[in-house]
């Protein structure tokens, strides 16, 4: 198997994409789960505010999602752009 410089660069970009998306997905998953859990807890205590709590939960989860989206973008950049 002959390996050129371009091959090496491409191979490294793919591995980088896998690492970025794989590790980058850990935090948002845990964080969003935690937010969801607390929302359930709060709704349990105060069901009449369910609408407000669900809205707050979704906003918070959307923010927590951001680093996951950054990882996705970086992974796609590594695969398709560079």
């Amino acid at each position: 198997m002959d390996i050129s410089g371009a091959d090496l660069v491409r191979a490294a970009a793919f591995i980088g994409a896998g690492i970025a998306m794989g590790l980058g997905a850990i935090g948002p998953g845990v964080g969003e789960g935690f937010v969801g859990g607390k929302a359930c807890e709060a709704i349990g205590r105060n069901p009449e505010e369910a609408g407000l709590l669900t809205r707050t939960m979704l906003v918070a989860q959307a923010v927590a999602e951001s680093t996951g989206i950054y990882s996705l973008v970086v992974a796609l950049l590594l695969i398709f752009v560079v």
Partner: protein
Amino acid sequence: MDIALDTVSIVKAGQFLGAGISMGFGAIGAAVGEGFVGGYANCSIGRRVGMASPYTRTMLIGQAVAETSGIFALMVSVLLVFGDFSANGICAWTATMSAGICMGLGALGSGIGAGYPAQEALWGSARQPALGGQMTTSMLIGQAVCQTPAIFALVIAFMLMFKNCSGLDVWPYGASLIGAGIAMGFGAIGSGWGGGMAGGKACEGMARQPRLRSPLTTLMLVGQAVAQTPAIFALLVAIMLISIGPQKGTLLTSAAMLGAGISIGFGAIGSGMGNGVTAQGACEAISKESSTTKEMLTFMLVGQAVGQTPVIFALVVSLMLMFIKFQIPATIVGFCALLAAGISMGLAAIGSGYGNGDTAESACKAVASNPEGKSGILPLMLVGQAVGQTPAIFGLLVAFILMFGSYSGPATLPAAMAVLAAGISMGFGGIGPGVGNGITAAAACEAAGYRPEERGLLMRTMLVAQAVAQSTAIYALVIAFVLIFVV
């Protein structure tokens, strides 16, 4: 630099690497566990200064048991430093290094786990001084069971060290031995750690409610025994890899054996810990509400059984990797694909396994807070656990696609790294959403305990939250697909 490679030097190098890995990792768990014990001994003595000498004695007994796995690691290390295994053939270099990996990692969970029963026994005696001697006995029972995975690891380490593999090739038989070490070493972590957590809460409960000593002991032992299942799966795979590992084959066979070890080794971590966490919740629950003792056993076992799913997926992938003859080209791409299948399944199972356990823990506690509402909590727990299984299912899906792909393109380095990266992306990417899904469902179960009339609302909120928390696992799946199919 000239390197003269004779068998004796290569095997010695493997032995020394193994010795370092064994003692290095093996020192972590025992020390952390003993630190917990020592810390709580200080708290207890601070609370009851007059009892300093019996508490110090209990502390030293507890620490001595927690030391066991560290001593196993030392023993394996010393054998590897001073022994000469070169008579076992060239494969002995992977065998001895693998023995080190197996014992070092295998000591981690049991060492940390053994700390929990001892810390709770000490703190419990400080709360209820009349119980002194009883608590030491309960501590020892709780600690003994969580040593099991470390003993499994020791057995495999010895099998590896003394395996006579003269005349066999490093590829694939040597690779299969490394797979065995990875399987048992990593596979022991969760069961040891989780079993210890269960023992800790049982001891705490016995100190709070001495009359519940016998139901708590039963619940603890059953819970710990079930939590051993993932470690037993890992043990079986490790024994198979050593005893019926392939003696002939291509590089592809080597990758399959390594992948088999990685799949079950990592896959056992989450379910083992999760099962332990569930047992911990059940013990805590009956010590708060003793009338629920009977249904708690059922609840715990159902929760643990569902929490076993991810490790069973991992076992299936391991067995497939070991026994199926794959129709994929024996190139670097095929090699990476089989390795990646193991990585994808093994790692993705960690989060779901742990998260499932966390959900079941809170469900047990919710039953104790509202025994009449148990029929409403069970569906919430099961739905929550089922959704929490999604990342593990994604991991399984990617593993299947990787194992049965055609790989008709040219075997270049980028193509190989693309499939490897697909496994890495899906494997790691499944961990967080699995844990997060479990946390959400846990809180929903807990809330349903004190607000049974809001079950429908809670179920809806839980599902929305879990769906959102799934998103990053879906991104990881998409990236894995792009890496496999597009590039």
